[in-house]
């Protein structure tokens, strides 16, 4: 009987320790991301090393690798979290055209990344480069996939049956151009990017294949 109680007590004790461990792990993970963001902003993307991040986070260099493979993985996580937050904020309207919905989606995303803009230009060169898109281990792959899935959903929502690979590649190319412009745009409140995004989307929508159910509904 006593043994049984001891087993139950031991069980709960282990569960408690595991919970603490999980919480501690999550906290460490968050701390690494936060510290890294600060360092990227302060020292620049190129001058920040994983060693420096580990030191600033107060953990051993080896410990950091239990959480992230590289600084690219850290920044990718940072971006993913901001984008997920942005998705929550978007309020969809019933009367939006395809162009407007894409516009809102992209601009809300970019706005959520505004505080990281300084170092994102350099970071994106590595993690979002179209030349690395076949590298599955690329840290930016999940960002790209999630973003394109959201865009595909928007396209489908506006009556386009199945956007082709070409359509999506065209979109991604345009998007990266806008992203690159935004990351280095020093106009007041990035108003030049606002104009560029507006006109890029006009181009994109105009280039969509006819009969996709889009032009018929929205040309006027």
């Amino acid at each position, binding site marked *: 009987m006593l043994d049984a109680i001891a087993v139950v007590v031991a069980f709960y004790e282990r569960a408690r320790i595991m919970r603490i461990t999980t919480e501690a792990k999550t906290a460490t993970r968050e701390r690494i991301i936060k510290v890294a963001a600060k360092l990227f902003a302060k020292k620049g993307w190129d001058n920040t090393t994983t060693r420096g991040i580990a030191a600033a986070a107060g953990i051993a260099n080896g410990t950091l690798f239990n959480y992230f493979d590289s600084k690219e993985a850290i920044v990718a996580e940072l971006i993913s979290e901001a984008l997920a937050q942005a998705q929550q904020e978007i309020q969809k309207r019933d009367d939006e055209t395809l162009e407007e919905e894409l516009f809102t989606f992209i601009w809300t995303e970019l706005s959520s990344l505004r505080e990281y803009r300084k170092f994102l230009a350099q970071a994106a060169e590595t993690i979002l480069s179209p030349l690395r898109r076949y590298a599955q281990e690329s840290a930016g792959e999940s960002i790209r996939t999630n973003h394109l899935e959201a865009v595909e959903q928007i396209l489908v929502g506006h009556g386009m049956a199945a956007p082709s690979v070409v359509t999506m590649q065209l979109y991604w190319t345009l998007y990266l151009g806008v992203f690159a412009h935004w990351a280095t745009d020093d106009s007041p409140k990035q108003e030049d990017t606002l104009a560029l995004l507006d*006109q890029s989307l*006009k181009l994109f929508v105009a280039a969509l294949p006819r009969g996709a159910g889009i032009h018929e509904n929205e040309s006027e």
Partner: protein
Amino acid sequence: MKTNLSDLIAALPQEEDGPELLSSIEAQERLQAIFADLAYKPVPVHSLHRMWTMGELSTQVALAYASLWIRGLFADAKKKERQAIETNLRVALKMIHRLGYLRGAAIKLGQAFGSLPELLPSQVVSTLDMLHAQAPPMHYSLIREVFRSELDHDPSDLFETFDKEPFAAASIGQVHRATLKAGEEVAVKIQYPGIGRAMQADLRNLMALIFPIRLSKSAATIKGQVEAMRDMLEQEMDYVQEARNMREAYALFAAADGIVVPKVFSEYSTSRVLTSEFIPGLNLTQFLAANPSQEQRDEFGRKISLVWERMYYAHTSYADPHSGNYVFMSDGRLGLLDFGCIQRFSPDDMRICELGEKYIDGRMTIEEMLLDSGQYAKSDIANEKYIAPLRRHMEWLTAPLLQEGPFEFGDPEFFKQGIDTLKEMVERVYPATSMYLYFFRSMFGLRVLSYRLKCRVDMGALRRQERKAWV
């Protein structure tokens, strides 16, 4: 209405001593190709294309004038310098070619340098002042972002109602109707993001390319004019400045004048967003389509001139009096829109105005006036062939003020005289202060309006009345 571009280019004055430059066939063709291409090239935004085609004719004419102006820069350069100059010119032209939606700047350039109607048959005049919208249209999502960055709120939070569709195009943005929470009907003008800065950059680049190479005596004049235009463009881009202009103009008119300057709502306005009272009524085309009586025409014509005179004696000029800026209200009042283009007279400008007053009062001849302005040598003024076109145009400008009783502005003969004398004048280079650029454009715009209205106005009496009140 199709125009032949080569006719337009051919109508431009030829250079007398520089056949190897732009008057050479090769250069002419190149210039022509660039301008033709520019006028027809669709902007890569499909909804904009429509507006652009509407303006084709005016675009071509304006650009023909831009080319005239650029050619004017070569008037007395030495042959040696020409090769270098031509290289720069080619770059400058390419640059004009590359202006995106900012071709508006090139058009304004052309317009300002040539007070357009002179090359055109009179029926085309009516389409000219329709050319105004150059900014791409904005959908509501973009407008919402402009509002968030300008006023920190969505339009739907700020206003009781906000029309998502624009009801008018402004030169560098668009206008939406809305209702304030307090119930007032308002017009909200919103500027296309970044367009102002981009236009400024275009102008700067153009000037940087053209002016260091200019060596002739007319360069200073032209430079002054371009600078005046740049200042005015800057003013038009800044809605805070426009709001100030509106408040000042508002204070100039009493209820009895029957002139309505819209009230500005500052708490909903920034440098890119301007919220003002909505003025219901007809535009000029709608007003004329309703077959107004002669009395109605005369009365609106008088009010349009009254506005101009009152502002003139308040040392400002309503510098862009095109028909889209006037509202013909059903109760007979005249509404004014768009105060982006208000010229404020400098002390130098005031001195020139004084000379003009003396001439109209008969206390000075045109020759004495020109001499006193300090910009003409005695020998220039003695040269009858040189000075006659200028005199004829000035006489045309002042004729309505000098006549006793109502002046018949609808007289086609009189209007044609103005076009002919202006054409004569443009063919020569006259020194002028930058003020003339807007002053003449403004006067000419007023004449075009009065001609279309076919109104009769006692300008002498109007001038005496306004002058008494304000000088």
